[in-house]
């Protein structure tokens, strides 16, 4: 095991981590903002999947332009998010958490089959991105250019979210509403509209992750949403449910852990991740950055 290998394993871990972060950010945002205990949105993986499929359709219909697909695809998923929040989730905020989760889980099943009906149950091969295809030599070995691009995009998204939440007027309102719904509405915030907007934004983030995944994972399959939502949950739990900072660091930890795990103990790479998750839940259930309940 020389330095070169370690650098490459690190880079692979970073790109995996950033990729999970793109999905987990929307999940964490929705959990952190909606309601006192939040909505743990199972359907987020479906947003990711729908985002990927929509991007694929747009870019294959409109002359193989990846960036156009990335622009339009997630906006379509935003509309789906609007429908879910406005016509379904809004009516279950006041009832118990299990029923909210079962509702979002129902959407997972629904979207899985919807994707099979619309796009077929087989896999779709994805195109490469002009300019980001191929690989670049790093320390004498090739590393995919697109993975480097993902590594760059992740922190940018994190920075953008931080500025939005901490530095803008909208962010301040979001924080206020998440802290106390009734109080926020008492001082004139239209909370239902705000929740819808946040949910749509979360859906957009998830779909964006899906769109960026199109060239990264290479194949689009109807089950891709469920695979990523488990990882996103792990990341959200490790970092602390509702904490964006925690989700970012959690994603880095999980990415590196899984890439080193795959390199050294391939039999137990997934196992390690879930051991870590269980340990965090038992030792510090609010995660590294979550507030104690």
């Amino acid at each position, binding site marked *: 095991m020389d330095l070169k290998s370690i650098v490459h394993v690190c880079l692979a871990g970073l790109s995996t981590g950033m990729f999970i972060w793109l999905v987990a950010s929307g999940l964490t945002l929705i959990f952190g903002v909606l309601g*006192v*205990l939040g909505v*743990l949105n*199972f359907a987020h993986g479906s947003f990711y999947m729908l985002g990927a499929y929509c991007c694929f359709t747009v870019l294959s219909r409109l002359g193989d332009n990846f960036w156009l697909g990335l622009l339009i695809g997630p906006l379509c998923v935003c509309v789906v998010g609007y429908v879910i929040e406005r016509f379904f989730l809004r009516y279950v905020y006041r009832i*118990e*958490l*299990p029923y909210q*989760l*079962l509702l*979002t*889980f129902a959407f997972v099943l629904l979207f899985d089959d919807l994707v099979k009906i619309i796009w077929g149950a087989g896999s779709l091969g994805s195109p490469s991105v002009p300019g980001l295809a191929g690989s670049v030599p790093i320390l004498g070995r090739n590393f995919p250019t697109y993975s480097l691009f993902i590594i760059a995009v992740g922190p940018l998204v994190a920075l953008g979210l931080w500025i939005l939440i901490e530095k803008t007027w909208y962010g*301040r*309102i979001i*924080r*206020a509403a998440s*802290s*106390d719904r*009734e*109080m926020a*509405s*008492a*001082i*004139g915030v239209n909370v239902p509209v705000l929740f819808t907007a946040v949910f749509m934004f979360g859906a957009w983030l998830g779909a964006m992750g899906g769109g960026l995944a199109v060239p990264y994972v290479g194949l689009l399959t109807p089950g891709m949403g469920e695979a990523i939502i*488990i990882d996103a*949950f*792990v990341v959200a*739990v490790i970092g602390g*449910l509702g904490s964006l900072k925690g989700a970012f660091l959690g994603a880095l930890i999980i990415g590196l852990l899984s890439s080193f795990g795959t390199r050294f103990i*391939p*039999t*137990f*790479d*997934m*196992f390690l*991740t*879930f*051991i870590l*998750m*269980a340990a965090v*839940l*038992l030792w510090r*259930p609010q995660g590294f950055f979550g507030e104690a*309940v």
Partner: protein
Amino acid sequence: MYRSWNIIISVLVLTVLILIGLFAGRFTVYLTSRVMILSIFALGYNILFGLTGLLSFGHAAFYAAGAYGLGLFSLHVSPHPLIGILVGVACACVLAAVIGFFCVRQTEIYFAMLTLAFGMMIFSLIWNMRGVTGGDDGLVGIMRAPISLGVVSIPIIKPKIYYFLVLFFLALSVFLIFRIRRSPFGLVLAGIRENDRRGEFAGISLKNYCRLGRCPGHLAGKQYDSVFGPLEPLRRTGAGQPDRRHPDIRRPACRQCRVYRIARNYRTLHPQLDALVRPDIAGHYHGVPGRNCRGPVRIQKIAGKVRCRPVIKRYGFNLITN
């Protein structure tokens, strides 16, 4: 009256199931077997979620434990189905005891996340340990050996005979669960769902009961593999997600403190409120939690002084500054 209806419906359902087994075609028999096996699984899940209100994500791990327990036992030790079923159920119970030991330490959403973590651990082990479980190829070569009971031997390789085996276990499970629900133990489980705190006051060891709640339903996994041949590790965690009512968590007993806390954090949002809720006033109304400050309050300015009054309205927070 209620009881007699129960008996009539049970007898009717049983009759229909037996008639299907006797006279229906191959496909119907196969499909109904599958439905019944999944019913056993759902009955077990219902003990945990329906009765105690604990939402588990890792329930399919027990299903897998039962199925792989039987599969491995019949491949390596003895192909006798009944012993295999017992071994499978024992495996699932041991796994439930281990997982339950850890999971009941957390409640609410964390319980669900813990069960998810353990369920995925089992999944990843089964998926990756190709030498033992066959990984994603599944465990192949499990025989449906005849059940030999000394003098008679029942060839469960025939779909119709197998159907009646499944039906027998379904009826057994239903009966057991019926007894459990009516027993003091079942009432305790329902008590956990309704109000766990109160249950604890009544002297119930919550943790032990939560743990026990997972053990009984898990006859289900055992039969699956015999129907479908190779095991499918892909069937993983089942339904939705965690949690239960926790009346006091996150809800300060003293509403007044909350008003103050929120207002301090977001002071700049509303200057009027900022002026209204000052630390000294909040301190003034910081009474004995739960006695004089519980429930919504109305902030009013009466004769130039800010006053907090409890209000009857349930969900409103009225801010009146006149």
